[in-house]
C-alpha cells in the first residue's frame, strides 16, 4: 500500500518555497486505516535541536520528616531557556522505583514534572514521547535522584534543596516539513540556517502556560551557558595546536640531520 516517490535535488514544485532550498525527499505513506494519509516531506540538511534540562530538586522535610518520608523531591524536564517544550514533547513518562505505588507516572502536558516524598535515592528513567509530526520513537534518559548533598559539612536545611540538573540537546536530524514549519519560530528550539529571529511571539497564544518561567522552583534552576565551556575549549585547542607545531618542527629538524655521520660539511 506504500508508495515511494523519489525526487532529488531541486524540484520545480518547490518554487513557491523560501529561497533556502534544502534537499527534499518526498515520501508518501499510506496507513492501513485509509483515512489517515500523512504526507511527510523530510528536510535532509536541516537539523533541529531542542536544548533541554532535566534533573531533580530535593528538599529535606526537617521536623516533618519521618523514616520513610524524609525528603520531598521533584523530577522534571524543562526547556533550557525555560521556554515551553510542549510544542515538541507530547508527554513524559517517569519510571520510579518499584517500591512506589504506580511507579510508572505519565505527565501529559507541560510543565513536565513530578513530585514525590521518599527517603531513598535511585535511578529514575525518563521517557520522552514526541508529537506525531515530530518523531514516532521515544527517547530515554536516566537520572540519579540525589537527596543528600555532596559535602556533609552542615546539617540539612529545609530551605536549601539539593539540585542536580543535566543539560542536553535533542537532535532531530531530518525533521518533517510540518514540524519544521510550525516550530521554526519557536523560542524553545534551535534551527540553524535561519536568520536569527528574536522576540517573536510563539504560535501558542497562551504561550506563558507551558514555559517554566513562573515555576516556583525556577529560582533553583541552573543557568547553563556554553560560553564558559567554549572559552576553555578554545584555549585548550590553542595550546595543543602550538604544541603540535613545535613537535613538527622538532621532527623535521631530526629528519633533516643525517643520522650516520656527524662530520661537518654534510648537508642539513
Amino acid at each position, binding site marked *: 500500500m506504500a508508495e515511494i516517490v523519489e525526487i532529488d535535488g531541486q524540484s520545480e514544485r518547490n518554487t513557491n518555497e523560501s529561497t533556502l532550498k534544502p534537499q527534499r525527499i518526498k515520501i508518501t505513506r499510506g496507513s492501513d486505516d485509509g483515512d489517515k494519509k500523512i504526507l511527510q516531506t523530510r528536510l535532509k540538511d536541516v537539523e533541529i535541536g531542542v536544548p533541554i534540562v532535566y534533573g531533580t530538586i530535593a528538599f529535606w522535610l526537617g521536623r516533618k520528616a519521618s523514616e520513610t518520608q524524609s525528603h520531598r523531591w521533584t523530577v522534571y524536564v524543562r526547556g533550557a531557556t525555560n521556554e515551553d517544550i510542549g510544542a515538541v514533547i507530547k508527554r513524559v513518562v517517569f519510571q520510579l522505583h518499584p*517500591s512506589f505505588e504506580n511507579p510508572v507516572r505519565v505527565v501529559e502536558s507541560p510543565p513536565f514534572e513530578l513530585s514525590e516524598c521518599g527517603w531513598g535515592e*535511585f535511578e529514575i528513567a525518563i521517557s520522552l514521547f514526541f508529537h506525531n509530526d515530530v518523531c514516532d520513537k521515544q527517547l530515554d534518559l536516566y537520572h540519579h535522584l540525589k537527596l543528600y548533598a555532596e559535602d556533609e559539612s552542615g546539617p540539612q536545611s529545609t530551605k536549601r534543596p539539593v539540585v542536580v540538573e543535566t543539560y542536553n540537546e535533542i537532535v532531530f536530524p531530518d525533521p518533517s516539513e510540518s514540524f519544521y514549519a510550525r516550530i521554526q519560530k519557536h523560542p524553545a528550539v534551535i534551527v540553524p540556517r535561519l536568520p536569527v529571529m528574536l522576540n517573536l511571539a510563539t504560535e501558542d497564544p497562551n504561550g506563558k502556560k507551558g514555559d517554566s518561567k513562573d515555576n516556583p522552583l525556577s529560582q533553583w534552576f541552573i543557568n547553563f551557558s*556554553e560560553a564558559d565551556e567554549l572559552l576553555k575549549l578554545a584555549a585548550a585547542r590553542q595550546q595543543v595546536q602550538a604544541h603540535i607545531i613545535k613537535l613538527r618542527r622538532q621532527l623535521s629538524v631530526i629528519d633533516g640531520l643525517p643520522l650516520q655521520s656527524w662530520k661537518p660539511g654534510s648537508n642539513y
Partner: protein
Amino acid sequence: MDAKDILGLPKNTLSMQEKKSKPPKESQRKPDGISREVYALTGGLAPLMPAIDANHLRRKVQTENEKITWQWLPFSNSARKDNLQLYHWVRVVNSVPPTGDYSFAKYNKSVDVIKYTDEEYEKHLTDNTWTKEETDQLFDLCERFDLRFVLIADRFPSSKTVEELKDRYYSVSRAILTARASSPGEVSGHPLLKEPYNVSQETERKRALSLLLSHTKQQERKDVEVIAHAKRITEARKAIKASQEPPVPALSESEPVNADKDDLTADTTAPCINPQFLSANPVSETATAVASLHMLRVYLRTYALDQMVQAVSSSAGLRTIKRVEQTLQDLGVNLKPKVPTKAVCAEHLELRKEILTLLNLQKQLQYKEAEGSSFRDSSYAETPGTPPKQSQRAADLDRTFTPESLQIGGERFVKREQKRKGPGRSSDAPSSPAQSKRPRKYNASDLLNIYM
C-alpha cells in the same frame, strides 16, 4: 538514624544509599501473627510457599480410631517375569493387608520395537550394506536395551557407528510402517515418518559439536572477535548503503523497503570476512558513525558526541585513549562537556582529534630520538657545527612553551628535552650560540635552570 539524630552526628549518606534497593513501604506492613523480629528475619517479605505443609503435621490425630500394625509380608511384582517372592514391611490397618500391585510396577515401561517377518524382510528391507543377520541382531539388541543406541553400538558384533545403527533401525521401522499401513495417509502422522532420521546431518552435527567442545580458550576468543568484526562490517555496509539510497531506508513500514533491507542483510552476511575492511581507519569509522546517526530519527547530542569520539579513537589503543583523557584533564577540560551544545561538541571533538595528533607526534619523536641517540652516543669526537639559526629558533620555541610542556608531558617531556640537548647539540642561552663548540654534557640542574 534515630541514634545519630540523638547524638547530633551528621548522617552517613553512603549507608543510606546502599539501602535504596530495600523497599521502604514493606517494612511498615508486618503481619500480626508473628512478632516483628521474626518477620524481619525473612527479609521483610512473606514466604512464597510454606516449607512444610501444615496439614501433614496433624495426621497423627486422625488415626486414633484405627489400629495400625506393621508386618513383614511377601509381595509379588507384576513387572517381574520370574515369580520371585520378596518380602517387605507393610502397613496393616485393622488386620487388613493392603491390596494392589507392587507400587513401583507401573514404572516398568519399555519401547515397542517393531518385529518383522522374513517375508517382509525380503520384500521391503533388503539393503546393500546390511545383511539380514545383522539387522536381526540389531533389532534384538534394540529390544533388550530399549533403544539405547550407545549400548547397542557397544554390543554390536561388527563395528558400526551409532549413526549407522540408528539409520538402519529407523529406516527399517519406517519401511515396515508404510508397508503395513493400508494407506499412506494413515501413518503420515507418525513421528517416525514426520521427521525422518537424517544420517548425514546427524554425523555432521555430532562432529561439529565435538569440535566445539574441544575448542581451546584461545580459539573461543578468536571466534568471538571474528563474529564481532563481521557484525561491525555488515552494519557499516548497511549504513553506508542505506545512506547512499536516500528515500528507501527512511521508511520502515512499507513492504518494498522491507524487502530491500532483507536483500541487504542477506547480501552482507556472506561468510567471507575481508580483512582489509576490519576498519582501524578512523576516517571510515567517522563516516559510518555519521551515517548511522543520520539514520536515527532522534538522538541526544551527548550520544552523538560519544559515537564520534569512538569513531575517531577507533584506531587508538586503550592506553592512548587514557592518555588523551589525562591530557584533557590537565588542560582543565571536562571529559564530557557540561553544556553540550552543537558548537561545544564540535570543539570538543576537534580538540580530541588534535590531542591524538599530538600524542602521535610525540611518539614519532620518541622513536626518532631512540634511533638517533644510539648513533649520537657513539660519536663524540666530531663537532657537528649545527646551523645556528635553526636550533636557535627551536630553543626560542622551547622557552615559550615550557610551562605547558611541564604540565602536559610531565616529567617525561623534560627528560626528552634533556636527551635532545645531549652531546652533539650546542646552542642554548648559557652557552654562546652559533659557534662550533666542544660538546659538553649538560647536567640536570643546568637544564632545569634553563626551563625555570
